[in-house]
């Protein structure tokens, strides 16, 4: 019987097959590190007298805590500053390359890996961050790990793991395209709404179908990024000409004869025709329209044209209670049209939608327009490279002319570990990945949206899509 893409990558990294109930031991090709989930891991190494086995397969960046304003001044919050300084000391002591604040290569860890060409097809990539699933867009097996596992990978460059199940997510449309105004963010929000936040538990998702094949690498990363919001360990897309074209010439991509050798190996990374997935889900992309979340988990989403659901109509008791609590927290009424929801803040950025294409999409809407008077809009590039690229293209001017704030790179308001936060009761339309209670600031209310919806919402002040703009 044939194998799926995920099974092929797994097999290629098998250091040792587990016996009986033992997990397999898997080799890790790339370990990305940031300041929040690593300090206790480095401490663990010191306590045990261990070193980092492969500093040359490890890369660190500062992203979660970093301010996006006044970036040349020391970090004002002393606790954040200590965490960032701890990472610097640890990287120095253990010989790990670090891209610190204000370095031209600094940025969100999941934006940095791909843009450097470090994320390659058929590699295993881990990071102490659940959105590591982003890198699966290249046909890598990439997943988030906890701090104990970070220490384990630092010490051994391996992880003990039991094989995941496989799920195909088939995304098709008549012509292989998404309708105007619909993006890969809408696709993944629709997938999560369909299979639920626990639907992917224990699975690696493989996104397939003509719509996926026609997506750019950046759009693919957005989809794989949110695999974790469906509960999946990882999301993958088979590498193809789009992938190879993206990688060719990047700093860490193979060169010369090694490039040809690599591409030949990468072409084998496809699910065999006779392979069988443990589960399959079909998404009809012809029917997709812009999607937004109304609740407090990413599965609580609906097409923008619909209304806030009535919990009374939900049969499952747990889901009904969850919907009631979500509406109370979000300050919404059942039956209220989603388009009538007024926002205070619009956030464009994050490892989900902080890449150059996302900024171009948002700027395309804002060009020649003004954001609503009582709306604050933050545009935070995913990396310094994205920032420089955007400035070269004049996007920063478009944003500031429209009344938005143009910031420096980092995770920013996606999780509010830096000063970019919502005030209690404030409502955002956000291109990030989580609408959990308090995620963007204590008491803050989050609606997850695409960059196009974010920009249109900023202009109108209420949840909107580009077609609402005259």
């Amino acid at each position, binding site marked *: 019987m044939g194998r799926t893409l995920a099974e092929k990558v797994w097999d290629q990294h098998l250091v040792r097959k587990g016996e009986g109930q033992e997990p397999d031991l898997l080799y890790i090709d790339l370990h990305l590190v940031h300041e929040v989930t690593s300090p206790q891991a480095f401490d663990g190494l010191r306590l045990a007298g261990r070193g980092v086995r492969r500093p040359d397969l490890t890369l660190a960046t500062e992203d979660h805590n970093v301010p996006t304003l006044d970036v040349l001044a020391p970090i004002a919050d002393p606790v954040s500053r200590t*965490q960032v300084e701890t990472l610097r000391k640890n990287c120095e002591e253990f010989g790990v390359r670090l891209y610190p604040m204000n370095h031209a290569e600094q940025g969100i860890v999941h934006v940095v890996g791909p843009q450097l060409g470090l994320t390659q097809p058929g590699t295993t990539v881990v990071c102490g961050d*659940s959105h590591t699933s982003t890198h699966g867009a290249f046909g890598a097996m990439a997943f988030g790990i*906890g701090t104990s596992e970070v220490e384990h990978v630092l010490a051994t460059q391996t992880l003990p793991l039991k094989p995941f199940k496989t799920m195909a997510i088939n995304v098709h449309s008549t012509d292989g395209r998404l309708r105007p105004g619909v993006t890969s963010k809408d696709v993944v929000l629709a997938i999560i709404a369909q299979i639920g936040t626990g639907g992917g538990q224990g699975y690696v998702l493989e996104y397939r179908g003509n719509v996926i094949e026609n997506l750019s690498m950046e759009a693919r990363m957005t989809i794989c990024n949110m695999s974790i919001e469906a509960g999946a360990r990882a999301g993958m897309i088979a590498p193809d000409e789009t992938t190879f074209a993206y990688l060719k010439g990047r700093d860490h991509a193979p060169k010369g004869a090694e490039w040809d050798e690599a591409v030949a190996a990468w072409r084998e990374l496809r699910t065999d025709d006779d392979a069988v997935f443990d589960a399959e889900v079909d998404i009809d992309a012809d029917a997709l329209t812009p999607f937004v979340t109304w609740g407090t988990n990413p599965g609580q989403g609906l097409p923008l044209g619909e209304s806030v659901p009535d919990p009374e109509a939900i049969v499952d008791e747990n889901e009904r209670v969850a919907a009631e609590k979500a509406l109370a927290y979000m300050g919404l009424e059942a039956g209220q049209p989603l388009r009538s929801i007024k926002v205070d803040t619009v956030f464009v950025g994050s490892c989900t939608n902080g890449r150059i294409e996302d900024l171009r999409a948002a700027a395309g809407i804002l060009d020649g327009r003004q954001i609503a008077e009582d709306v604050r809009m933050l545009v935070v590039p995913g990396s310094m490279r994205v920032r420089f690229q955007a400035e070269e293209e004049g996007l920063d001017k478009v944003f500031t002319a429209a009344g938005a704030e143009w910031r420096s790179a980092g995770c920013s308001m996606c999780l509010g570990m830096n000063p970019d936060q919502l005030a209690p009761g404030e409502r955002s339309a956000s291109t990030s990945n989580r609408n959990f209670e308090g995620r963007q600031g204590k008491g803050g209310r989050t609606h997850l949206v695409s960059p196009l919806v974010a920009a249109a919402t900023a202009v109108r002040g209420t949840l909107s899509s580009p077609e609402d703009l005259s």
Partner: protein
Amino acid sequence: MEKFSTHTGIGVPLRRSNVDTDQIIPAVYLKRVTRTGFEDGLFSAWRNDESFILNQEPFSRGSVLVAGPDFGTGSSREHAVWALMDYGFRVVISARFADIFRGNSAKAGLVAAQVEQPDVELLWKLLENEPGTEVTVDLQEKTVQAKDLTVPFEIDDYIRWRLLEGLDDIGLTLRHEDAIDAFERSRPAHKPVTTA
């Protein structure tokens, strides 16, 4: 890691599904560089509400959390496990756990016991009707017992063995260092390095 065989403590019914790791411990508490002292961050937003279960006696002294399905979704922060343990929890019971949370629990020594939802409902009713009821979790037998109610739970056999033995994962892996060396010698030359 300490060995775990059985644990008995006050059961805390938490009637919520999708308890994500941002609820278990918000990001602002993750800035510390230590491994302990996260108890103040546990459910910090909900603990502002006087009616929250952990603000009520005797639940505030609980050590077995009985939660709705999809517990621990979201972020990979192991701080969520540390916060639960620092507060005093030794066991979390739920019908479904997020994968990363389940893995983190196993590493840190928190038992994530998977119990069928109808049995979770029975436990909730019992703990709500008789606050302070002690729950005994037997990892050897894979059972949860409270008063005359005994229900089975699922846990990965390898994780169970490691918890029962209190074994350090890295030490176990390093027993296979030869295999790692051999694997490294066979890696293709085109694989990337971060330093070049």
